[in-house]
Structure formats: structure tokens, C-alpha cells
């Protein structure tokens, strides 16, 4: 049996980085093909390949960590750094869209009537569904913290319940936003108001869906006894991501829905 004289994880050769890169290539060139030649085949192929890559790559990580014991404390530390850096990069991603919003709304151009909201735009009432959405996400922050404490205290049933509740709240948010999008009196094509509103809230919604999926995977793993009370970094990463999504929403709500109305 081979041994290593260090606590780090030298990963076995894997095809998933390559398939991931190929997927990225097919998706991007597929996008161009769709624009010019009206065919979605290449892009669809790329997307399928991406989904397969994600599934298999993360499955392998779970195997390496949970079943093969490769996630020693220093390895876990590295994973923590990684998740923190990733979330930080996402913060900067959203910062860009907030910049765009404030640039447009602090100094509205004559084309908009020199005012914000622009002439002709009926904004959404921030104290209706958007406020409910705020409450939903804040509540989900509470339930995910409850889930974390349940896991740490070995309360299996409670962990499953609170994690399920968190995911349901996430779905409820997505559902409500979907209704809002459908019933909104303005579209993405309605000037810079429409652009900033739908791009910022749209990417946020996408992140809610990603976060909900991440939490759902954690739920599945919790049910299958993957987590211990001491070691459950996958869940922590999902919880961090979920809090990040919540914070972004709070900024969106204050800036675009409330101040921007």
C-alpha cells in the first residue's frame, strides 16, 4: 500500500477539467452559432456536457472526502479558502451591476427626463411582494443557521427538517420573483431602468437557484449520513453561499426596489 509523507491531497488524474473546458467552448461558440445561424444544437450540447461535468466532478470530490478520507484538516482549510475566494469574486461580479445602476440612477440622462425613476416607468411597490421576498430570504437565513447547529449537535431529524425548510423558502422566493417578473409593468427592453433592474435581479435569481440546488445536494447528503457533527464543510460552504445570496438581495432591495422607486 502506498503512503504519503504529508497531509495534503494529490488528486488522481481526472477527465472532468477537460470536459468542463470543452463544455465552455461549445457553449460559447454555440451561443455565436445561435446568434448567426439560428441553431441551438451546439449550445445545447455544451450545456449538457457542462451539467455532466459538474455532476461527476462534484460526485468525485464527495467520494474523495467522505468515503476515502482525503479531506484532512489542511485540505479542508484549502477548500475553505477556495470557497471564500469564489464568493468574493461573485461579490465583485454583483458590484459591477450595482455600479451600473448607480451610474444611471444618480445622474439620469435627458432621454429619461432627467429623473429617476425615468419618465413613463411604473415601479413596483417595494412594500408589496419585494418586502415579502425580503422576509422569505431572511427567514431562510435563520433556518439554514438552525440546520447548521442541528448538524453540529448531532440532531439528525432537526437538521433534515430545517434544511428542507430552507430549501422550500428558497423555492418560494423564486416562485414569487417569477410572478413579479411576469406581472411587471416594464420589461428588460425599457431603457436603462429595465436593463439595470432585470440584469441585477435576474443574476440574483439565478444565484438563488444555484444556492437552492447546492442546499438540496446537502440535504441529500445529510439524509445519507455523509456529514458528521465535526466535519461537514460541504454544508458550511452551501450555507455561506446562501448567506451571500441573502445579503445581495438586501442590497438589491434597498437600492433598486426602495431607493430607486
Amino acid at each position, binding site marked *: 500500500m502506498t503512503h504519503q509523507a504529508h497531509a495534503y491531497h494529490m488528486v488522481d488524474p481526472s477527465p472532468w477539467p477537460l470536459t468542463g473546458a470543452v463544455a465552455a467552448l461549445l457553449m460559447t461558440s454555440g451561443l455565436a452559432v445561435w446568434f448567426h445561424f439560428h441553431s441551438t444544437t451546439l449550445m445545447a450540447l455544451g450545456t449538457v456536457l457542462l451539467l455532466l461535468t459538474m455532476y461527476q466532478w462534484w460526485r468525485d470530490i464527495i467520494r474523495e472526502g467522505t468515503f476515502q478520507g482525503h479531506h484532512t484538516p489542511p485540505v479542508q482549510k484549502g477548500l475553505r479558502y477556495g470557497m471564500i475566494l469564489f464568493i468574493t469574486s461573485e461579490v465583485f461580479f454583483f458590484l459591477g451591476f450595482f455600479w451600473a445602476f448607480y*451610474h444611471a440612477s*444618480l*445622474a*439620469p*440622462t*435627458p*432621454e429619461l*427626463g*432627467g*429623473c*429617476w425613476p425615468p419618465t413613463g416607468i411604473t415601479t413596483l411597490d417595494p412594500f408589496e411582494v419585494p418586502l415579502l421576498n425580503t422576509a422569505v430570504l431572511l427567514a431562510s437565513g435563520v433556518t439554514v443557521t438552525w440546520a447548521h447547529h442541528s448538524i453540529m449537535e448531532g440532531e439528525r431529524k432537526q437538521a433534515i427538517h430545517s434544511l428542507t425548510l430552507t430549501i422550500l423558502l428558497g423555492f418560494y422566493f423564486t416562485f414569487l420573483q417569477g410572478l413579479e417578473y411576469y406581472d411587471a409593468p416594464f420589461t428588460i427592453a425599457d431603457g436603462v431602468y429595465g436593463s439595470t433592474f432585470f440584469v441585477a435581479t435576474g443574476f440574483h435569481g439565478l444565484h438563488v437557484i444555484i444556492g437552492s440546488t447546492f442546499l438540496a445536494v446537502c440535504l441529500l447528503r445529510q439524509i445519507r449520513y455523509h456529514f458528521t457533527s465535526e466535519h461537514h464543510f460541504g454544508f458550511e460552504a452551501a450555507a455561506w453561499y446562501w448567506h451571500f445570496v441573502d445579503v445581495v438581495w438586501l442590497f438589491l432591495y434597498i437600492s433598486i426596489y426602495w431607493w430607486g422607486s
Partner: protein
Amino acid sequence: LLIAVFHYYANCQQIMTRTPLASRSFSHGKVETDEEFDARWVTYFSKPDIDAWELKKGMNTLIGYDLVPEAKILDSALRACRRLDDLASAIRILEAVKDKSGPHKDIYPYLIQELGPTLAELGISTPEQLGIDKL
């Protein structure tokens, strides 16, 4: 508070020469006088290399205050519009002034009269002259 009230009624009664008290009454620290307020805004719009964003931002902030800007501030803003080749904003400023005057219908004609030479010099038509003052 008394000064603010006085200014409000003075405003109603006479041709406007003074803006209502714009600065806030702090419990401590220096309170900005009307002259200082006006000078600050004239300086803001007088920046030679003011950019389009700063012009629009300045106008939006100014219009957000509970007052109608003095002619000298508007003059400075109109000249900034000229430097930026922004006729649309120049005319919009006049519309905003009329809107800010609210029920005090004498303010707008007075300011148009005060700004007359500047409007002529810069070639800015009023909304009335363009026929766009009626919806």
C-alpha cells in the same frame, strides 16, 4: 425655524429674491448660509471640465432640495450645458425650475426674465417658445 417660516411667507408675497432656507438646522456645527449654499453650487457647475455625469448628478441633487435655485446657480448650470453641448438638459433645467416652483406661479417668469440675457447668449429656447410646455 422662525427664519424658515419668515422666508416662506416672504417668498409668497414678493418677487423672489431670496431662496427659502436650504441648509439644515444642525444642533451643533456650522450652518450654511444662503450665500454659501449658492456659491457652492455656482462653483460646482463652473468647473471648466465638468463632465456629463457630474452635470446630471448635480442637477438631480439640486432639484431634490426644498427650494428653487437662484438665477446665478441656474446660469452656471446652463453654461455647463453649453460646454457639454447638451441643449436637452438646458431646456430640461427650465422645466424643472417651473416644476419646483409649485403653486408659486410668479417664480418661473421672474427667473426666465433674469436669465434672459444668458438664454439669448447661449441660444437656449424656453419650453414655451418651443411649444412643449403644454402636454
